């Protein structure tokens, strides 16, 4: 067990937990975007920054989702420095993705209303990496990855051709906070009819033999009526 102080609160945590986990465990709210409990932390969005100081050290900003708890650490989650850092981050996020309900809620929570920046694209990908990590860690398929560097960085399939690894589960779309994920670029439309002829053959042969009516019920109409109607009809 490690002992640390978060916002003047003395806290005990298991070894190996991150600051964010310690905060959440103790009901201290820290905004996050790229963090997901089912995934390895990534430290991309910097919304979860907190101030960490220790004896004899100057306080500094760290991303709490990846920063491990240390014995005797002094953590503050609500200083003006932290607030300013988070607000600028939220403003930058909002500039590209104002239509996203999740990001709008985050910005509202941090008190960001005006955006000083403009991006050419609406609903842009913010490179939080959730989709890539979900595909790798939750689905176990790794159909997508982050390619290129700098401003050209983006999420794509290898060589940007539709992936044959993709199983089309849609986890990437579901986890995307901005709605920027283009599913068609990944999975494409793989029209396949592996045995349509066999299906026709088998089904039609079967179709004539198969009676859909439950064999323990003689009259479907009666069954589908409301119970009261049925009672009335019986009387």
């Amino acid at each position, binding site marked *: 067990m490690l002992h640390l102080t978060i916002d003047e609160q003395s806290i005990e945590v298991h070894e190996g937990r991150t600051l964010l986990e310690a905060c959440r465990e103790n009901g201290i709210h820290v905004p996050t975007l790229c963090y997901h409990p089912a995934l390895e932390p990534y430290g991309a969005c910097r919304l979860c920054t907190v101030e960490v100081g220790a004896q004899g050290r100057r306080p500094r900003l760290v991303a709490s989702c990846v920063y491990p708890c240390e014995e005797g650490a002094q953590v503050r989650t609500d200083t003006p420095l932290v607030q300013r850092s988070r607000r600028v981050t939220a403003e930058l996020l909002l500039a590209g993705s104002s239509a996203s309900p999740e990001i709008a809620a985050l910005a509202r929570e941090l008190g960001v209303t005006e955006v000083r920046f403009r991006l050419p694209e609406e609903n842009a990908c913010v490179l939080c990496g959730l989709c890539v990590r979900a595909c790798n860690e*939750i689905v176990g398929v790794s159909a997508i990855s982050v390619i290129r560097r700098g401003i050209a960085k983006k999420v794509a399939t290898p060589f940007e051709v539709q992936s044959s690894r993709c199983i089309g589960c849609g986890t990437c779309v*579901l986890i995307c906070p901005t709605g920027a994920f283009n599913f068609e670029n990944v999975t494409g*439309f793989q029209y396949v009819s592996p045995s349509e002829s066999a299906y026709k053959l088998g089904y039609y042969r079967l179709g004539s033999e198969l009676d859909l009516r439950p064999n323990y019920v003689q009259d479907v109409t009666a069954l*589908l009526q409301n119970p009261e109607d049925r009672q009335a009809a019986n009387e």
Partner: protein
Amino acid sequence: MSDEKSPRVGVVVCDCGGRIADVLDTDALCRQAGEIPEVAYVVRDAYPCSKDGRERIRRAITEQKLDRVLIAGCAPRLVENLFRRALETVLDPAYVNIADVREQVAYVHADDPAALPKAGGLIEMGVARLVTTNPAPIQIGQVAKVALVIGSGLSALTVALNLADADLHVILLEESSILGGAVAGLPEGTRRLLAEKSEMVLRHPMIDTLFNARLTETSGHPGDYEVHVQQGDQSVVYSVGAIIISNNAQPKAPGSLHWYDRTRVRTQSEFEVELQAAAASGRMSQPKDIVMIFCAEESQLEHCSRICCNTGIRQAVRAKQLNPDANITVFFRDLYLGGIGETYEAELMEARKQGVTFFRYRRDQLPAIKDKTVDVFDTLTGEALRVPFDRVVLTMPLVPPEDTKTLAALLGLPQDEGGFLAEPRMRLRPGRYADPGIYVLGSVHQPADTAEALFQAYLTGARAARFLRQESITLTTPIASVDALLCTGCGNCPQVCPTLTIHMTKRESVLSLASVDAMRCIGCGNCVVVCPVKAISLPGWDNIEIPAQITAALNAHQNGGPKILTLACEWSAFGAADIAGSRHLSYPSNVRILRMNCSARFDPYHILWAFINGADGVLLGACPPGQCHYGVGNLYARERFEKLRTEMSAHGVNPRRLHLEYLTVDDGRKFAETATRFEEEIRQMTS
């Protein structure tokens, strides 16, 4: 249901750090959950998915002696595996269930007073599933350390040698009596390579080569196939772990579209023989006017043969070297000069430099071979050309080997438009992602040049060796099983199985009985639906738990409006509903969504059960045609849906109360719109 005592269910209600708790009163939700008779323990947690949260659930299971756990939280797609993995030491994965109260309630019904009852309803559905479900038995399959290689082309020989060198037994099937197939028309380098490899294969102690042999029957599953090989007039049975299909594509037989006489008009491979003979003698004075027609007769086909442009251009260069006075004209439609790690553009440049003339023709104006000239319409100048010839070389497209269709039928592999074996798509095998024991390579898959064939062979060799070296294969996905006491042997189920997994066997040598090869079952549930006596069960999607969930969904108190049940395939409509949630696209709160594995499992009985239990409308959500993860489950669903609607109208029930919608997994907007429209329609119908 096999448990004597009633199960103790624990319910964990997640606050999601406020995302759920700000919309739903989670304390009230806990109280509602506590009123369900089977629920023994209810707890509220801010973050049950955190490391400590999972630890708390595990502790609660042991302390409270729970044997089922329901977590009311977010989309199962995201956290189901997380919880199942975290709790697997104390609870079977089937006994951990997620009720999606975030994406399906908190995010979409924020200001709706019916949100809380709906969340309670989802918990009731989840509990109903937990108390009726049975865990899927774990299947363990053996792996025979033998590989069957069909064909003896370059890729087949290479992969056979690779596996044999890795100390795996290889059985090589060759249809003819020599290895390598038709080698006459191949370039010299390839022929030398083939000869070397053939020699090595014949000498290798780990390789059994069967000549004049072909595959007549296969059964079994990855790791343990039983193959019947017909050799001469005797049939031998082998047990193999993997089947590698690598027989060669053949050039199409000429003559159906162009004039072909084998002397003045020859095919590319016949010209190769001629060139090699000329090269041996060092000179070629005849023929002088050579016309090459690329993509000859290709217009009848839809695929590119990928190697003939390269070969043709190389031949042109060689002919020019042997006879610098020769006039070589090439008619092409499109040039494909790609190859692994290189392109053949340098050869094209060389040919141009040597004075080979290129004309492009259009598909609808094919070159016509006349008595002394070839007439063509040049698309670049827009002029009709007349080129004299004394040799025409037809580049015949490669077509799949003759027995491809038989092989495809035997092994249940899909064929593409050109008749080649298509790769089994990942999306068709959701449980397992790919049939691991069958490999397709070389030109039976698509025409490949030497480098590509070798590359594929080494790759396949490595993959197959890794597969064959496994001790055993373990499967935990749900699979169908037949109750022998109930089965009447009607023979319905084998006909609808997408993986041809079910076979009829003899019982006491008289009555037939269906049996499922568990290792190949993908768990779509199609057989469960067609079984007239319901002798087949599929853990997790069984005939007990689905009606139980339907009853729970419809019994839960609703907000006055019509009761709508949605059967949602988890690969399409259920995912779309979750995405509608994550985008906060609202739809009526009296729509209850039941997660199904595939639309093939939409059982007419279950739909009728829903109507009997008071559903006003039933919405079915399936994958669009051609995109079903289990083959053609959605087509079966459509047939059953249409039949059931006819049946309903015949009995005086409004067939519009049942609706089928095709949805893709990313289309949350369409789901929200469909649900809203359907609810409106039903509302008008019932009012």
